[in-house]
């Protein structure tokens, strides 16, 4: 016995006097998003965004890699010195440098002795008719230089051995330092790789950024309008819900009933007896008609 229509509630969150600005704002956003006159503002950046490696940097990276991969020749020599000492190569005294020193140490006195000393002994002792033709002093000193050279050599071998044993002990801390060189070399090699990778990574990142800008270009353009719309979201609400009300038939019936009751009461006092019925009928008709047209 009822019917329904929609009931709408409207909320306006923006002052009326600001509507003109809003409409202009939306129109501009729409133009930027779609009008061809703004196409040139939405293009992919046409230039390079990442600088290439300079030759100095390339050479530096390569030299660093070479240093790390091959090490230093000087440090390689130092390593050999330490290795020889620790291996005891110097203990026996057969290294060329030691032998050269030994030769000089023995040859120089021998030569000098033979030419300047030994040659001077015995010669003046000869006399005419001397039965002995031999220079006894000269013969007696024949083995002197050899004997002293042997003694000197034996002494030097011994002293050198003692010194090299001490060196073996002294060299131990340096061996640690030199052993770290391989780590430094590896680190330099790695750094050279990192330097190049950092450059390449930056290049790739920049390339990606430019590519991505191209991908989202259209979206960003439309989002200009989207932003204008988002600025207005929440400024207006409109709620429409069903609203139930009494149907026309019930309204007419109620009107007729009210009219009949009123008419009957009035009729009974205007014209007691039949007036009640007449008043009720007339009242019902009038009430029904009026209710129909007023609903």
């Amino acid at each position, binding site marked *: 016995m009822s019917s329904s229509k929609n009931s709408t509630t409207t909320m*306006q969150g923006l002052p009326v006097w600001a509507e003109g600005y809003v409409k202009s704002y939306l129109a501009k956003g729409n133009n930027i998003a779609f009008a061809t006159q703004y196409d040139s503002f939405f293009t992919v*950046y046409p230039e390079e965004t990442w600088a290439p490696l300079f030759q100095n940097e390339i050479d530096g990276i390569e030299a660093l890699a070479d240093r790390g991969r091959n090490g*230093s020749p*000087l440090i390689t020599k130092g390593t050999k010195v330490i290795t020889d000492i620790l291996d005891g190569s110097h203990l026996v005294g057969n290294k060329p440098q*030691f032998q050269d020193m030994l030769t000089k140490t*023995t040859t120089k006195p021998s030569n000098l002795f033979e030419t*300047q000393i030994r040659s001077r002994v*015995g010669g003046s002792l000869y006399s005419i008719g001397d039965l002995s033709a031999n220079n006894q002093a000269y013969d007696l000193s024949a083995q002197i230089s050899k004997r002293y050279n042997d003694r000197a050599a034996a002494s030097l071998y011994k002293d050198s051995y003692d010194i090299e044993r001490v060196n073996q002990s002294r060299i131990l801390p340096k061996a640690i330092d030199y052993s770290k060189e391989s780590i430094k070399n590896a680190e330099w090699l790695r750094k050279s790789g990192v330097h190049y990778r950092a450059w390449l990574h930056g290049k790739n990142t920049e390339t990606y950024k430019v590519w991505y800008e191209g991908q989202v270009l259209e979206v960003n353009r439309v989002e200009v309008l989207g932003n204008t719309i988002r600025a207005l979201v929440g400024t207006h609400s409109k709620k429409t819900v069903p*609203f139930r009300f009494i149907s026309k038939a019930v309204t007419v019936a109620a009107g007729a009933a009210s009219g009949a009751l009123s008419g009957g009461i009035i009729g009974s006092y205007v014209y007691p007896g039949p007036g009640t019925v007449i008043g009720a009928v007339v009242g019902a008709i009038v009430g029904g008609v009026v209710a129909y047209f007023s609903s």
Partner: protein
Amino acid sequence: MGKGGSGASNQTVTTNLLPDYAQPYVIAYLNKMSELSDNAYATYPGATYAIQNADELEGIAALADRGRNGSPLVAAGYASIQDVLDGFRFNTNTKIDEAYVRQAEVLVKEFEEETLPVINQFFNMRRSYGAMSHSWAQAKAAEKVMAKLQSIGMDLYFKDYVQERTLQIGNLDDAIVYGDQSAADSDTLRQAGELQREWQLGKLEDDYKKWHDETTKIIKRLEIIGNGLRTVVGAQHEVTEPFYRPSAFSAIAGLALAGAGMYAMYKGSSTKQPSLGTKAGMPESLTPNSLNNTATGLMPAQEGLNPSSWYSTGVESGARPESLSLQSQFDSGQTYKPQLNSNGINDI
């Protein structure tokens, strides 16, 4: 707006969250923002990235040169250490030979000018010149000279050897420092290139920023007024909703009914009515007027049912006759009427 079966109109409630006196300022603000939205953000005409000056360029070039060619001083030191480690410095001191000759010369001269003459003179005085003992004496004197020559040789040449060995070991620490110079030079060269590239990269980034500034200025301009509008969003809250009221006919019908009812009541009260009590056989004690008379009416003056008696039976103090309890009223068939206690609360 729903009309329904009755009269309907809109009701608008407006809440201003901004004082009225501020509205002119807001409008001025929006006008200015709108104007700026059309004109602001011209592209900056000046330079935004500084060029490299001569000092910087020369400095980078010098760094590159140092890195590429190294230091002459370091190169010399490097070569020196390299010779030492290679053993090239052993037995190369020509001054030692000279020193040996000079020291030996003293011995030879002494042997020739002092030792031999003294020996010869001695054996001559003993008349044994040229004898076996004379030869032995000369040989022994020569041997002593040999011992001294050997001692000088050992002292000079072996000392030099030991010193070179000591330097060899001593240079090992320096060899690390000098050996690492190549890595430092390489990194210096790389840094020189990096400095060049960083400037170039900054230039490219600056160019991109300018381009970006140029291409986005229309959006920035638009958002000037956009931000202005966001400022006033929510400055007013206006709600419009339908308001339903009865139709004109409903009002007329209601008035007609009310009027007819009043008319009927008036006519009824002004017309003589027969006595209900006597004509209908109703006892006198049940006439309406008698209802309030406890002595003659419907409500007998029973203790506990007369309201006036409640106050005299301790109601004020909270006590209540048993006959007025809810249960007793149900039991006795009386109608429950909520009673208020002294605090105005239903006391059941």
